[in-house]
């Protein structure tokens, strides 16, 4: 697997999102799953069943935290209480890395609870990178940022989305959670070539990949996470793995959630792409990088 400093030199394989409708099955059947991704905010509570469930999961499985409300792109200071709770949770889960989105979602103390798109400007690069560095310094765990799907573009933008992503991760020196479904959704909504996006991302910074399904409407595509992964997304995934090496991959299925077995089977379709690139050359590349760092 593509272990690198942005995913804590782990090679986790194929994971699925931990969702409430599957709790019963997981605890009863104890299925073999490489790892679970949790939504951090669902467990940033003071007590009760969410933390009890999490502790039970942690006894048996590896867990990676994925956030939805840090809002790295916010023009205003980050929420300190959120950061404090995030760090507490990270100590509990021992997550090898923390991810959240390259977006904003709150202003003047009001939260939209949405992942709103960024204007691709120099000011936004500087602000976002500074916020990511602040989180990284505070939590002391590698932070990776995920590209979001979007439905709007701004007059203010001075560069493409992938140029923006690349500038932010360079300036923040952080990793990338590459969501190939989001790339596809945005490419259809904004009319760019999704392959150009995938080909432009710095492969050595990709810590994790997301795959998911989406829904097509008359004039746009919505990122609904309620379907199996569609063929164009698998194609992008194949290219991403070709460039990045076998990378920790997570299937998101968040609405109309089918049985655990169905979700797991869909996720495991990623195995053929990962296995095709589990060649010694990739393993060697990872080892070389590790040796370089250890010198």
């Amino acid at each position, binding site marked *: 697997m593509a272990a690198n400093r942005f995913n804590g030199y782990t090679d986790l394989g194929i994971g699925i999102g931990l*969702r409430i409708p599957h709790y019963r099955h997981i605890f009863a059947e104890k299925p073999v799953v490489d790892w679970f991704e949790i939504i951090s905010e669902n467990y*940033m509570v003071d007590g009760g069943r969410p933390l009890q469930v999490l502790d039970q999961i942690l006894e048996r499985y590896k867990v990676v935290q994925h956030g939805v409300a840090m809002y790295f792109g916010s*023009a205003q200071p980050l929420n300190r209480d959120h950061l404090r709770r995030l760090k507490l949770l990270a100590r509990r889960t021992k997550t090898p890395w923390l991810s959240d989105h390259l977006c904003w979602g709150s202003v*003047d103390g009001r939260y*939209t*609870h949405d992942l709103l798109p960024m204007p691709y400007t120099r000011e936004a690069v500087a602000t976002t990178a500074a916020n990511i560095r602040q989180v990284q310094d505070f939590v002391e765990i590698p932070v990776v940022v995920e590209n979001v799907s979007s439905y*709007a573009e701004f007059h203010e933008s001075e560069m493409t989305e992938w140029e923006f992503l690349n500038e932010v991760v360079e300036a923040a020196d952080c990793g990338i959670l590459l969501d190939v479904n989001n790339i596809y959704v945005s490419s259809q909504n904004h009319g760019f070539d999704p392959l150009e996006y995938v080909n432009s991302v710095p492969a050595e910074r990709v810590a994790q990949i997301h795959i998911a399904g989406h829904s097509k409407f008359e004039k746009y595509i919505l*990122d609904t996470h309620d379907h199996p992964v569609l063929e164009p997304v698998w194609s992008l995934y194949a290219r991403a793995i070709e460039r990045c090496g076998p990378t920790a991959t997570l299937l*998101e299925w968040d609405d109309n959630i089918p049985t655990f077995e169905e979700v797991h089977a869909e996720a495991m379709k990623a195995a053929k792409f990962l296995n095709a690139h589990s060649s010694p050359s990739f393993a060697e590349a990872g080892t070389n990088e590790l040796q370089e760092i250890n010198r």
Partner: protein
Amino acid sequence: MSLLELQRRMSDSIMQPLTKDYRMRSRSVRGQPMSAVAADFIRPNSRLTSFERLEIYNQQYWYRIVSALSEDFPGLSRVLGEKKFDAMILAYLAENPSTTFTLRNLGSNLVAWLRKNPKWTGATPDLAIDVARLEWAYVEAFDNAEYPAITTEDLADIGDDTIFTLQPHVRLLDLDYPVDDLVLAVHRDQPVSDVVSNAVSGKQAPRSRKRFPGLQPSPIFLVVHRFDFSVYYKRVRSEAFQLLQAIEARKSLGEALEMAFAESLATPTEQANLIQNWFLNWSELGWFCKTELDKHSMDAHPHGEI
């Protein structure tokens, strides 16, 4: 346009209430045409105008928060009826946008807001408020903190000047209506969901929400608490409730007992037996904790009014 200015303009636009048929309004709250507001910062494409692109976010915002709040108050929806409930939560959310990173706190001001805005409480305002109080207490009892509890052995050391501390998940409710069983039944039918990543949601399909049968007022005293990770509603008698309220108000045990039994008809022997049984039972349920409540930061989880 600075990043902050753009974010303010966009959030103002998407947090603006929708029309009755769930479309973006044609004019902003300041009276400007929304087509002009959107065109000012959002680029159109060959298929969608700036207005239409902004409208996607405006709709998603409302679908998301209405759905989250509705999940926390299914009983209130039954009391008010679907149409009135939907109108009420739109009015509430327009005045009470989320101010924390979690949707969990969205309903924290609902009871206080309903009291200030009785026109939204339907034909039986006290019943609606009782149900809302109980449903918010459930949210708090579900995931509020739990500290190491005092044990029945610890009770041997207590005296008149002992100050007990209630666990943060223990919530006390004096209700005009016996709504506990009905709310329990509604919650049992409620599907559970959690916050998910990135995905957008459509307008929720209308659920079958039958009205509550007519309930007659009949005051009850209820303790909403968590035991073994499940939330329970426990009815208690008036004296026990007053005792717990006094303990919650940080009165010493002596003062609390005096307040609880001030108007009680129980004989001193009966009182002694009641007190002994209550404390044994409550300590077995883990209602008292060793940690001082004021050391606990509840900043991110405002209790709201129950």
